[in-house]
């Protein structure tokens, strides 16, 4: 306790010096904490926005090989899938059917290629929070079977207004050309996700257009209650399904978002074959990116800290000469070598933890202030949380960085401290500065 007390008070002796050293540590810690919290928040936001956009965390698509040799993108019967979910006890928040196609919207000579999601709005309440309407209302989707919601910029391209009838040209599941009519029921402010902005229509009508039957769909989205269990639950689900139905390999040679656009349909099969994907599979790129940013951050921190550590080593060398008579006195009074070393190491520990805590607090303040700013609906919307920056602090990471700083500082002070401990007390007492 004695050493701890002396070490702590020693830091107060040269306040400016301690403040500068601690401040340098604080700066490094601040940078890394903000960077990590930003990338972690980025991942969460992207995942969350994608989850809402795609209405789930785990996705099943089906491929049916018909007798004529055609492959149809459809899930005909989802009872096996639902039963397996139930049997495994996977905690599902909601389960959503969607039928998705990409077709050409045509209005008075203007046309736009657009992805349309056929949805059942009653089962996708979450979409109402995610999609902000500029004009019209979601109710139209319930009352008008041919209702269509598309984004502002698509509407602008088509030069249509609310209530206009818009033609759609598409290919049915079986490969025939088909034409349908939509009524523009609402206009959304949809910044989209990585350039994809979806249009929404009624599932039943889309099924009709695709010619796949009323209660069918092309995508089954499972929205889990627990975000963190996506990978483990998906693995369980996949292996259970593999026992019952034909499944495509989960390991895809296509990376990230591309894998959603088509499975590698190698191999021969009869009837239905399913593909299982998770939001994490789709976002592996974003994860990688965040990982790279974090590594760069760590390297910068290490470089910064090494410079600081050289300064700390030199400062402590100086401190030891300043206090040489004190060291001699303590040794004369009966303090062992490790006691002297302990004082300097405690001093280093307090300095590093104090600096790190200061950096942490400053980082918190900066992050709170930064997340007040509203960036609106810009193209970066998908990485924001409702237009705001979102920082996620991962405690384990913070602890790791604190420990890293502490270990580095202790190492930097170790050699001067050892030198102080090994001083000859008679020599130390004779020396005057």
């Amino acid at each position, binding site marked *: *306790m*004695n050493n701890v*007390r*002396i070490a702590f*008070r*020693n830091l*107060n*002796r040269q306040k400016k010096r301690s403040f500068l050293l601690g401040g340098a540590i604080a700066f490094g810690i601040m940078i890394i904490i903000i960077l990590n919290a930003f990338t972690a928040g980025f991942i969460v936001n992207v995942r969350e926005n994608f989850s809402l956009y795609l209405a789930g965390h785990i996705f099943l698509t089906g491929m049916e090989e018909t007798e004529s040799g055609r492959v149809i993108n459809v899930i005909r019967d989802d009872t096996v899938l639902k039963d397996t979910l139930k049997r495994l006890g996977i905690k599902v928040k909601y389960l959503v059917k969607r039928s998705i196609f990409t077709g050409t919207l045509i209005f008075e000579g203007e046309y736009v290629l657009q992805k349309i999601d056929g949805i059942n709005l009653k089962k996708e309440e979450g979409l109402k929070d995610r999609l902000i309407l500029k004009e019209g209302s979601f109710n139209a989707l319930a009352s008008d079977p041919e209702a269509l919601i598309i984004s502002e910029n698509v509407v602008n391209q088509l030069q249509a207004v609310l209530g206009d009838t818009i033609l759609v040209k598409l290919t049915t599941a079986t490969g025939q050309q088909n034409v349908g009519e939509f009524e523009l029921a609402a206009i959304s402010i949809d910044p989209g996700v990585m350039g994809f902005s979806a249009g929404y229509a009624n599932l039943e009508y889309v099924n009709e257009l695709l010619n796949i039957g009323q209660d069918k769909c092309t995508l089954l989205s499972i929205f889990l209650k627990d975000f963190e269990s996506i990978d483990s639950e998906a693995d369980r689900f996949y292996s259970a399904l593999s026992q019952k139905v034909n499944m495509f390999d989960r390991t895809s040679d296509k990376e990230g978002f591309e894998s959603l656009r088509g499975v590698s349909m190698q191999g021969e099969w009869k009837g239905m074959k399913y593909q299982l994907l998770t939001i994490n599979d789709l976002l592996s790129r974003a994860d990688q990116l965040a990982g790279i940013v974090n590594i760069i951050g760590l390297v910068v921190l290490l470089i910064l800290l090494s410079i600081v550590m050289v300064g700390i080593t030199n400062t402590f060398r100086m401190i030891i000469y300043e206090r040489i*008579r*004190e060291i*001699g*006195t*303590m*040794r*004369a*009074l*009966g*303090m*062992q*070598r490790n*006691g002297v070393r302990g004082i300097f190491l405690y001093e280093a520990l307090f300095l590093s933890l104090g600096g790190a805590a200061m950096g942490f607090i400053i980082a918190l303040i900066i992050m709170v202030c930064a997340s007040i700013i509203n960036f609106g609906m810009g193209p970066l919307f998908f990485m924001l949380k409702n237009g705001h920056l979102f920082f996620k602090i991962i405690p384990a990471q913070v602890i790791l960085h604190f420990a890293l700083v502490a270990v580095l500082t202790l190492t930097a002070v170790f050699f001067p401290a050892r030198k102080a401990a090994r001083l*000859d*007390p*008679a020599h130390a*007492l*004779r020396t*005057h500065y």
Partner: protein
Amino acid sequence: MVIIELIDVKKFYPLGNVQVEAVRGVRISIKKGDFISIAGPSGSGKTTILNMIGCIDTPSAGTVRINGSSTSDLSDKELTTLRHRTIGFIFQLFNLIPVLNVYENIEFPLLLGKEKMDKKEKKEWIDSLIEEVGLKEWRNHRPNELSGGQRQRVAIARALATKPQIVLADEPTANLDSETGTAIIRLMKKINQEQRTTFVFSTHDPDIVEIADHIIRLHDGLVVSEDIVLEERSG
């Protein structure tokens, strides 16, 4: 009973290519409860001898015995333990720990070593020491708020904290005016008489030398006279 014994003690310091002979063969024996002064001009070897008695340093040749056992073969750790248990130190420049207040400075040696005192007992003991050296009002002040004489009183109390058998003081009055210096030596003398603690102090002030029971006079690393008269008188 002899508590400190120096037998043909020599101490050399390497200085470049030559050797400085700080102590050139000294024989001294000091009895328990003595109040002894080592006198001599600057460079005569006072500090060197006190350091060897205080187990801060070991002789280059000869033997230093404390309580009958030689210090030469001891490790740094053993020497430190011996210092802590047996010896109290008072320094010319007071050498208080600047970040500790009066009470904490006196407490400092009690927190070293393995034996721990009972908390209440310790507090009472330290407060009694503070009272003994007359610093009751200054208990919670830091050294930089005290005068030289007051600082040396704190140092005396600190030296006595572990109830050592021997207290060594290297020119304890050199940085004090003569009146304060005399008062400090008289305080040491009073404690010596009350507690039978052995005191060895060095000085080159002739007035202060006279307060001692015995005087060892040094010159150029040799003992030039031992005040045997006083010894016979007191013995």
